[in-house]
């Protein structure tokens, strides 16, 4: 198929449809409205389910119901809307049914603004709902990656009976890039999941629930979730590396911050600095082991995010003080420019950080002096 010039949000919606999406439930919020809008037109056209719910709470619980029937189901929202969905997400995790969640992040906290941000990293990756559960989280940095991730997200969710979240920010949702959409999957897909509650005539009835009033039974359920999570950690690590072969310094960033860093890394290379880029794609599970390996030949890491250092905590877990880390973040919907990250790379080389430094605290004090 040929490349088309596609807007991020619309490309994500169409890719999900082509991956066999049975049902979409959502509620409008900028900067992801084009997903809902696309679904509202295409899903009825194809004879599939689309509901604009009365609110996010309604939408996520409709997703819960459809997921229990074995349908390929998703919702999408942006930061404040995702917060409203957390109760339902925890129930879905506790019921062990698959779903895909798309979060097009915007500036926060609170109502914030509609500009691009990565402020929901902790909420999404560490499971913003209550209880012990781990969503799978994939972070695209461009539209082709986002498109390719949609069929993958459904496959992973169904394989591991888990929530799979595609986490991006408003800039990827709003921008256009050439991308190739997947082929339309044959539809309808068979509804034959051995766990689904889709009519018990002629078979044993099944029960799907997240209520286990007997604590030992709930403990066994938790262990079952963790056993699957262990498999996910083993099998589903994804990342992309740039210019790392001879790199003495490594920038780490995901999604938009990662691709902006790519420009800075190229500019630094042009100035003779041996720097590379490590871009995590699976944020949960996180590529701890690969970062641990990179420690062996790296003099210092620069972690860059559009938040106050949420992923930085995961990098620190992997690095464990072996290599010094510098941090650079922009907040509240401000996108960093490549020049800023280039400057950070040059500063890191000129004034190497120390392993015992607290990179977030040092960054914060720089920010308090420069951003007034």
């Amino acid at each position, binding site marked *: 198929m040929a490349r088309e010039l596609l807007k991020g949000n619309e490309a994500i919606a169409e890719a999900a449809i082509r991956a066999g999406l049975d049902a979409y439930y959502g509620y409008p919020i900028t900067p992801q409205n084009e997903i809902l809008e696309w679904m509202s037109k295409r899903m009825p056209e194809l004879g599939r389910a689309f509901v604009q719910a009365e609110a996010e709470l309604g939408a996520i619980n409709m997703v819960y119901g459809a997921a229990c029937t074995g349908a390929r189901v998703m919702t999408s929202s942006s930061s404040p809307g995702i917060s409203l969905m957390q109760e339902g997400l925890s129930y879905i995790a506790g019921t062990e049914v698959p779903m895909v969640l798309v979060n097009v992040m915007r500036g926060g906290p609170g109502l914030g603004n509609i500009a691009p941000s990565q402020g929901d990293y902790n909420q999404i990756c560490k499971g913003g709902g209550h209880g012990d559960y781990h969503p799978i989280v994939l972070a695209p940095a*461009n539209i082709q990656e986002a498109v390719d991730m949609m069929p993958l997200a459904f496959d992973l969710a169904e394989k591991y009976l888990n929530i799979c979240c595609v986490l991006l920010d408003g*800039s990827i949702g*709003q*921008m*256009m890039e050439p991308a190739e959409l997947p082929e339309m999957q044959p539809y309808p897909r068979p509804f034959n999941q051995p766990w689904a509650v889709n009519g018990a005539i002629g078979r044993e009835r099944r029960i799907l629930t997240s209520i286990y009033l007997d604590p030992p039974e709930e403990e066994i359920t938790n262990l079952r979730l963790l056993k699957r999570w262990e498999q996910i950690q083993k099998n589903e690590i994804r990342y992309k590396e740039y210019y790392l072969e001879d790199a003495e310094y490594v920038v780490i960033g995901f999604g938009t911050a990662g691709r902006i860093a790519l420009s800075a890394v190229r500019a630094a290379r042009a100035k003779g600095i041996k720097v590379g880029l490590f871009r995590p794609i699976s944020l949960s599970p996180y590529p701890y082991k690969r970062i641990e390996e990179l420690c062996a030949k790296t003099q210092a890491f620069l972690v860059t995010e559009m938040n106050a250092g949420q992923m930085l905590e995961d990098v620190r877990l992997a690095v464990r003080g072996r290599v010094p880390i510098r941090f650079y973040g922009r907040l509240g919907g401000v996108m960093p420019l490549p020049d800023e990250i280039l400057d950070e790379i040059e500063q890191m080389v000129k004034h190497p950080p120390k392993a015992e430094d607290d990179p977030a605290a040092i960054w914060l004090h720089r920010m308090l002096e420069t951003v007034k």
Partner: protein
Amino acid sequence: MQIEIVLAGFGGQGIMFAGQVLSYAAMETGKEVTWIPSYGPEMRGGTANCTVVIADEEIGSPLVKNPPVALVMNLPSLDKYEPLMRPGGTLVVNSSMVDRSVRREDITAIYIPANEIAEEIGDKRLANMVAVGALLTAVSVLKTEDIEATLNAHMPGRHKHLLPKNIEAIRKGYAYAQAHTVAAKA
């Protein structure tokens, strides 16, 4: 090769579409390209801008601090982007809507009366395509024929009758710009 182009003007001047036309043409000539709009809550009636990046390899940042090429369709856009231009860059100014000259001497200025030329062609809505024509004199990776082929390929059937005038607008803008370029002194 990588070039970053900022296009700016009032909402309604066809700025977003002009950027998309460049992007389609870049894609169809086998380049990588990104188009990113300003999508703030101020869109209706306010200023609109988009950034187009064209490159041979995977594009990093879709935004740029100091663009080497920009098109400004009105005075607020000139005031905003003139100080940000990369030294040696080219600023295309819609002189129909701007009553001052470019002050910087280290950038090349191209003045194009896009609205007047569009009206001469017979449709004032073509001002954006006239400006795109002028812009192409500063964007060597795209030829006017690439843009014309793109319009031909992507214009919906019901709009196909508009194609000749769009092509005329692009060609006139290009020709006028070639004759009215004030080269950088520095």
